[in-house]
């Protein structure tokens, strides 16, 4: 009994001490990669940042710096991909926004056209809309419950209930539009050079669009080594699955 207690205690202690240690090690790796970058050793910096990404030590700063490192090595596609990832984690990071615009202009990367909600409802992020939707939903539920027990139901309460329902519904609509839009879960960035979107899953098939590295696509389905994607200019075509990486990991 006592031995078992000791074993459980040791395991718990190990768990509690492992996480801070791993984080400390990740910060060391991050600092070293930054030093490599500053010294002009961009390939080493890329390796350092990539090791953090592989180890699931994700941070907007890591992806931003990795994008910078890829830019220095001339890999515009992966630079854009990592700036996008940085913005996926922190949509308001101004450095990533500025660098992304710069690299896109230099690489002539094509972008997907945002949908209507993305253009007009972008004052909140997806996560913020989710929280708003949850709060409005529960408030509406409580208002409804209170009205259920009332003998007389004031018009103000009914108005408040409808307003809360509208806020919750609108937030869910915005989330849905965002998730299926240009910042959604299926958005990918072309990382390989000379990617051509084709009409069918064959190299000999007709070309729909030539996609420079860094171009945005939205993967609709995958068949074997090919992905069917929505392309800029409202086009659709098949691209090699290895030629693009999803923004969200």
């Amino acid at each position, binding site marked *: 009994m006592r031995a078992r207690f000791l074993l459980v205690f040791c395991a718990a202690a190990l768990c509690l001490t492992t996480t801070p240690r791993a984080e400390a090690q990740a910060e060391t790796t991050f*600092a070293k990669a930054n030093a490599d*970058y500053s010294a002009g050793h961009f390939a080493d910096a890329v390796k350092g940042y990539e090791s953090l990404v592989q180890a699931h030590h994700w*941070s*907007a*700063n890591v992806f931003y*710096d990795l994008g910078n490192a890829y830019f220095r090595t001339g890999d515009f596609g992966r630079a854009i991909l990592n700036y996008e990832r940085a913005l996926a984690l922190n949509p308001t990071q101004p450095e990533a926004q500025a660098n992304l615009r710069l690299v896109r*202009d230099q690489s002539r990367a094509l972008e997907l056209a945002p949908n209507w909600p993305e253009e007009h409802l972008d004052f909140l992020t997806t996560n913020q809309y989710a929280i708003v939707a949850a709060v409005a939903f529960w408030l509406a539920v409580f208002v409804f419950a209170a009205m259920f027990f009332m003998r007389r139901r004031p018009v103000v309460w009914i108005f408040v209930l409808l307003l809360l329902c509208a806020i919750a519904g609108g937030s869910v609509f915005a989330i849905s539009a965002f998730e299926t839009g240009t910042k959604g879960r299926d958005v990918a960035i072309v990382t390989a050079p000379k990617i051509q979107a084709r009409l069918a899953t064959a190299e000999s098939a007709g070309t729909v669009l030539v996609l420079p590295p860094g171009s945005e696509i939205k993967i609709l389905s995958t068949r074997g080594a090919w992905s069917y994607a929505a392309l800029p200019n409202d086009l659709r075509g098949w691209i090699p699955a290895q030629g693009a990486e999803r923004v*969200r990991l």
Partner: protein
Amino acid sequence: MFRRLILVMVLALAGAPIARADAPTVTAVLTSSETEVDRPVQLRIKVTGDSEGAPPTDISVDGLEIHFTGQSQLVEGRNFHFSYSFIYSYTILPLKAGTFTIPPQTVKTKSGNLRTEALTLNVSLNGNGTTSSTRGRNGGGSTIDERKLVFADLVVPKTTAYVGELIPVEIRLGFNTRTRARLAEGPSLTAQSFTTQRMPEPQQSVETVNGVQFQVVTFKTAIAAARSGKFEVGPVEAKALVQVPRRAGSRGRSPFDVFGMNDPFNDPFFQDPFAGIPEQRQIDMKSQTVAVEIKPLPPNSPASFSGAVGNFGLTTDVKPKKAQIGDPLTVTAVISGRGNFDRVNSPTIEDDRGWHTYPPSAKFQPDDDVGLSGTKSFEMVLTPNENKTAVPPLLFSYFDPLKERYITLNSEKLPITIEGGAAPVPSAAVASASNTPPTAQPTPAPQADDILYLLTDRPRWVQSFAPVFERPVFWAVQVVPLLALIGFFGWKSRQRRLANREGQQRAAWEEETAELQKKLRRAEDPPDRYFAEALRVVQLKTALARRVPPNTVDAETAVSAFQLDDEKRARVRELFRQSDELRYSGRQNGHGAVNDAMRREVLELIDSLS
């Protein structure tokens, strides 16, 4: 006498088995010892006097094709002498001319092995003069004029053309309608130095050629010469499978029909057992050739010429018409007409300065089955690097074989509106907008067209890219308002339940009050009970007014519960005192009812309590 006759018959019948038991014999005969190449004859081996026999299964003679075709049984009776025979039939097809000897064949019977005599077959040349069979080459003897069965024809309407120009070609394959024929292979068109367009599904029609009706299958295609010179187009080759009837042979008398009787072997079937079945023959079809002269294209072709020969038109469009600098514009160029569309390439931009162009995509929509005419659409993406008012004209050149010169099509300028200045570049203002001023790295120094500095702040690690509503913690948090909601419902329900209980209590009190007041008006009870009931009514009314239990109501409580004058107050107190006195003193007012004056007084007092 009659007994003797029966005895003779029995003896005669008894003799039949004796005759059947004679020594078995075997005979081999040919239906004809003279024949031609490809004209079959019959070999019959007859075994008499044995009930079973095993015929030879494989008779091989060089130059003859011999097949076992079946066996039959024959019963013959002559003068009460019955004999049983088995006849084994073989078909012999001569493959070449000459004299052939069919060697003796051994037939196994119950009585032992029997051997036939050797037979001789003389095979002469057939009607076509061929010394050997054509079955090995095309599947059957050929004594029919193949030109009356099938034909192939090549139609090339244009015998002079330019390099790259599409020349329509028609291939006609005819099949005699009186035969069952089908195309087994092809057609294939031999045309060296030419490229051939795809051949769509053929059209069928019935035509009469030289008095013979043919089912004509017409294939349409087009060819284009790769170089100049004089060439032969064709022939067209195809293979057809045709079913033709077998030729009937001469009908001789059976060698077994010695006396001219109706010998079953003399049936026409034995002359040629396949005569009623048509035979399928493969016929090679070949057309004539056509001489075509190909002229070279004139020199000094335009720069935008890509080899298109024919007659074409060009239309263009651009979308969107309003964009920012750096935004992609999709320019659509549609080339329609008649010619070699496989050599039609995307039009070129007359002046691409200030534009960034991407490789175009192409889509061809033919108007006919061959692809001689149609529409080829090109979509190319352009991005303006500076302010522009129009997409420059697109150029497309082709060679017109009718006008015999090069033609260059110029599209109209496509007006557009480009907004915005130069492409945005990051500036220090962007960096200053950051909420968390980063530690700027000295190298590399940011340039006007360079990326911003590294962010070396201690990273804030995150676990997932998933939005918050896809994380379990988000849904776990929803349990809190859910529990609060459940608690709210429980609290409100309890409140309502309690409220209901009080209401029910009050209703019961009101009902009891009404009942007692009725009884008091009737005044049927004795005084002690009457005053007790009156007191109870006062207590109930006080309880309803004060929301207190009626049993706790005393005279002072009742007095203070209602706004009464002094007289009424005194009467209330008197009512309490009188009731207590009647209840506890044991003093009886008799068994009679309360008098009217007292009843009226009590009722007035009770009515005044409101």
